[in-house]
């Protein structure tokens, strides 16, 4: 069989502001056969998206394809002129962008955008194109395939948009489809549906796919062959199974390892040496946060957080996991004092913690520190690393001059950063380094409790793994208590002692992190845990088969006050779950589950 895609010696260069050239992709060769799915794997800056775009003859502003041969479905892409490229793109090869939320034009209906390629390339008359669009919507398992096209992008969810975008890519029946991290922005539970839809369509139509991703577990599900990229060059290229199970290069091995984070061993709660130690560092009770009209009791009509009950024991790490929109970042802001609750209390070491940060005592502000998600945004670009640390030392401990400098350098040591960074500004640091500085700043206050909000979300897996390791290490050596907020189950299991699962502003389950993967759980926890892709082929099929067996019926009209999981729950009790708030079941080993099901009917996760 001949290769449908073949790239030889591809080079892409970027132009720097000062006129110099920087190689972005250097001498990359790859090929894919008809009907195959080729994965381009790498971290940010590896050039994977650049290569994928080069297949379409496209280079982003400031870059240019400077050499090599690109042959796709019989077209010499590197030799096509502007008109040739226009006829080629969207017809022979099409593109599914990373973030469908921003890749659809907000001012046009989806319908017009989806059928546009067919009309532009004169593939189909309008009628036919509309018919085929509906057909594709159906194949993508989109709800209301006949009418969904009349909507505007902002009216649909990310997962639906991603599938619509795939439908748009397929409407001209192209020979190659490029998927650019199509599920990275999605929640894990949604990712499964989207992956499943993509794979079915690709296989059914015999389309050749190029799949760009950083997630090896996703590669295992969709790709036949994988190319590992690093710094714009091919690092390893082989059949998927070979790359994942027997990586030959050190870098590929590192990537694979970053997907197998060591799970934190179960630790017994700190033995109460004296009475005070048993007291939790932070207690959150009955906290309600919301907006909109306020009722007679001062409670808002729309709730982001509703009746949150949590506590962080001394010297332990509490993980809070949930998907987008579950209210986890609001919870972080509430604990940090940036969003005062409408009701409920926060206690810090037994003392009431005021809702607004302005009303907290300086001592409380010092002892509760936050490490925020995006280190790019929380470090003032105008300051040097040293100044950032010294300011905190001066503010809380009155350290100045030599003493402050010595302490700041000690903090850099603590987070494993070289002293040379002292005089650098955040702009000059890498993502991982910035996150370490972020940590050091929190530690400079010598806190009791550190609130970590999605600290690994913006980082590449290998860097994220190192940050998590640092966090565990610091927690152990300094005896910190932490709240770790994340959407990533791997990260959660790697660092947390205890877990709270958040859904729709409610805590649906609390349990020990070690018991998360087996035993009886809340149905949502079970869905979440089983949705995290595993790095073995066939996993998706198993899960999809299991899902099909337990798909819930049509969604009942949403009523207030019921279980937030009702619309998606396969085990729901009609007439009860959607009306009555679920009771909390306490089990002897400290597990708390909010569900109407009796304990012995809760879903049980198979021990892996």
């Amino acid at each position, binding site marked *: 069989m001949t290769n449908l895609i073949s790239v030889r010696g591809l080079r892409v260069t970027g132009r720097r502001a000062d006129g110099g050239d920087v190689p972005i992709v250097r001498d990359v060769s790859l090929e894919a056969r008809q009907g195959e799915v080729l994965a381009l794997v790498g971290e940010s800056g590896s050039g994977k998206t650049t290569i994928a*775009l080069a297949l*379409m003859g*496209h280079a*982003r502003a400031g870059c240019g394809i400077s050499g090599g041969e690109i042959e796709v479905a019989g077209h010499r892409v590197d030799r096509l002129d502007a008109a040739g*490229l*226009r*006829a*080629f*793109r*969207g*017809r022979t090869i*099409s*593109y599914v*962008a990373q*973030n469908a*939320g*921003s*890749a*659809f*034009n*907000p*001012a*046009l209906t989806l319908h017009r955008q989806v059928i*546009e*390629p067919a009309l*532009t*390339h004169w593939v189909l008359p309008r009628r036919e194109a509309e018919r085929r669009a509906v057909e594709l919507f159906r194949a993508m398992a989109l709800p209301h395939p006949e009418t969904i096209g009349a909507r*505007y*992008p*902002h*009216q649909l969810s990310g997962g639906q948009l991603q599938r619509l975008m795939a439908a*748009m890519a397929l409407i001209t029946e192209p020979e190659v489809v490029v998927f650019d991290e199509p599920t990275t922005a999605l929640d894990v539970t949604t990712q499964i549906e989207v992956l499943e839809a993509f794979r079915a369509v690709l296989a059914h139509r015999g389309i050749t796919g190029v799949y760009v991703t950083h997630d090896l577990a996703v590669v295992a599900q969709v790709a036949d062959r994988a190319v590992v990229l690093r710094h714009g060059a091919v690092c390893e290229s082989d059949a998927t199974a070979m790359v994942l199970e027997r990586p030959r290069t050190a870098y590929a091995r590192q990537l694979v390892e970053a997907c197998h984070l060591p799970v934190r061993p179960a630790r017994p709660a700190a033995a109460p040496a004296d009475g005070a130690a048993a007291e939790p560092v932070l207690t959150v009770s009955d906290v309600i946060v919301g907006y909109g009209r306020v009722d007679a009791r001062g409670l808002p009509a729309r709730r982001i957080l509703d009746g949150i009950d949590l506590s962080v024991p001394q010297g332990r790490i509490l993980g809070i996991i949930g998907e987008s929109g579950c209210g986890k970042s609001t919870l972080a802001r509430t604990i940090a004092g940036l969003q005062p609750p409408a009701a409920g209390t926060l206690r810090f070491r037994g003392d009431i913690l005021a809702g607004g940060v302005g009303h907290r005592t300086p001592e409380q502000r010092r002892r509760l520190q936050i490490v925020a998600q995006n280190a790019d945004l929380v470090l003032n670009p105008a300051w040097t690393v040293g100044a950032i640390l010294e300011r905190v030392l001066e503010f809380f401990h009155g350290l100045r001059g030599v003493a402050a400098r010595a302490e700041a350098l000690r903090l850099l040591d603590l987070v494993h950063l070289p002293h040379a960074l002292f005089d650098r500004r955040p702009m000059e640091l890498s993502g991982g380094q910035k996150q370490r500085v972020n940590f050091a700043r929190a530690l400079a206050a010598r806190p009791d409790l550190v609130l970590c909000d999605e600290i690994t979300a913006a980082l590449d897996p290998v860097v994220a793994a190192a940050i998590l390791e640092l966090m565990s290490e610091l927690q152990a050596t300094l005896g910190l208590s932490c709240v770790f907020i994340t959407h990533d189950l791997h990260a959660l299991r790697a660092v947390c002692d205890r877990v709270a699962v958040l859904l729709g502003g409610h805590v649906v389950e609390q349990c020990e992190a070690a018991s998360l993967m087996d035993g009886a759980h809340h149905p949502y926890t079970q869905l979440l845990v089983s949705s995290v892709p595993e790095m073995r082929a066939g996993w998706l099929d198993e899960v999809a088969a299991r899902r099909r067996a337990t798909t819930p019926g049509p969604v009942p009209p949403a009523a207030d006050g019921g279980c937030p999981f009702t619309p998606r729950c396969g085990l729901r009790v009609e007439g009860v779950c959607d009306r009555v708030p679920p009771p909390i079941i306490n089990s002897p080993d400290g597990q708390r589950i909010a569900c109407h099901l009796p304990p012995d009917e809760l879903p049980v996760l198979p021990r892996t």
Partner: protein
Amino acid sequence: MTRSLGPLILGRLAASAFSLAFVVVTIFAITAALPGDVADTLLGQSATPEAAASLRHAMALDQPAWLRFWHWAGDMLHADPGRSLLTGRPVAELVGPRLYNSLLLAGATAAVSVPLSLALGLACTMARGTVFDRAATVLMLGTVSVPVFLIATVAVFVFAVQFHLAPALADINAVHSPLQFVRVFLMPVATLSGATTAQMSRMIRACMIDVFSAPWIEMAVLKGVPPVRIVLFHALPNAIGPVVNAIALSLSSLLGGVVVVETVFSYPGMAGLMVDSVAARDVPVVQCCALIFCMVYLALTTLADVVAVASAPRGRDR
């Protein structure tokens, strides 16, 4: 979330009304502070203090400022700008024909510059980074950074002195045919449109380039959509707000250039009237002219704001 447009638009209108009130007070305050008054102008050399005082009394100039403001503002609300102190004729009669002339000039300029700038701005966006784009942007930048009087002077030099294409002074009473119209208006309009077009197309280009950085533009490129369609069908609907704002802002800044152009070409417009009336301390005329200028500005920007609010793409703030 569905935003209701009504309250938003009402809010904009209320805000503009507030600004207008502030402007009215400011204009009155400044004109009240003009040193000397029309009594001196009228009596000229023969002024005796007594004669001046009685004339002032007759014109109610000796009343306290707040009382005069009260009467003036009340009259303005009834669309009655009063009488010229200099000639005794109603201000409306004086300003009316001048306003018509100015509107004619402004209209002609807008008719030339708006389509021209849209075309130029869009063409530059489509040809981003090419020689054409660079040359055009440098030219536009050069034009916005020279004073209007320079453009006017050069226009006179080129059209009237060198090529005798048009008279150096705009005698609009001589307009009896379209050809004459073109001859008379050629230079003033060319000058004003030159300045306005440069500014407007620069701003339009900036708005469009901003929209062009959106991921869905790249998506359209990768779908093989031709550039013209990308600009008109994908980018423009998302840029209506900023583009309309750019047009309104440039048109209103044209009001400033009008003074110079009217002076250079002796064009009998509002600005000229205002300049003369300031010199003669004919306060009611000055106030009326200034107010009209400000109202035109506020009307333009408010209109642009309302259009921008109404056309904001759905879900922009997702």
